[in-house]
């Protein structure tokens, strides 16, 4: 079965600084990978996804992620964070590796922005 690990429960970053949130997955083949963000009181919003092709994917709100097969990682990055980026971020993989199946999530990373 697939699993997703987000090793950092909390990350604190100064406004304007760069950000990298880590995600490692466990799956034999190339999975469908996602990053979601949840702001307080809101549902989860998709930031970006990777299915195949170019390993560097661009998402909304200035985020990008890089798929590295050799490291089983899909880390999320942003060159300069804004106070509005404070939220909880989730890495996820499709349960079966593809298709319209449900998602397996990591435990999430709380992003705190310092002024």
């Amino acid at each position, binding site marked *: 079965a697939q699993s*997703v690990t987000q090793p950092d429960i909390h990350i604190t970053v100064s406004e304007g600084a760069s950000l990298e949130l880590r995600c490692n997955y466990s799956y034999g083949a190339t999975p*469908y990978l996602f990053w*979601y963000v949840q702001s307080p*009181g*809101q*549902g*989860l*919003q*998709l930031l970006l*996804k990777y*299915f195949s092709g170019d390993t560097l994917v661009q998402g909304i709100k200035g985020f990008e992620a890089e798929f590295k097969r050799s490291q089983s990682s899909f880390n999320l990055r942003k060159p300069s964070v804004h106070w509005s980026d404070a939220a909880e971020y*989730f890495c*996820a993989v*499709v*349960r079966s590796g*593809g*298709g*319209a*199946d*449900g*998602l*397996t*999530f*990591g*435990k*999430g990373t709380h992003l705190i922005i310092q002024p």
Partner: protein
Amino acid sequence: EAGVTQFPSHSVIEKGQTVTLRCDPISGHDNLYWYRRVMGKEIKFLLHFVKESKQDESGMPNNRFLAERTGGTYSTLKVQPAELEDSGVYFCASSQAWYSYNEQFFGPGTRLTVL
């Protein structure tokens, strides 16, 4: 276009009582998913409907949970009788066609507290 809606937003019940959560997916979406997040844990998949049929219910914790999707439109998740460990946030998501991966759109969740 309206997003995924969930009702109620909060529910507080006593152990042993029954609670029914409702999810209205985006109109025309074949797939409907239920997830749950218990405090401090990851978001966990519960089940997946394709139209009115249960495609995958392997994540349902036990037979106290009953999910239905009437006519392939809205869905209900009933917990009967509720136990303390059922407390958490229940998310619903929907996506378009069943035959390939499409983005899952999440509702804001229902926070269930069992006392």
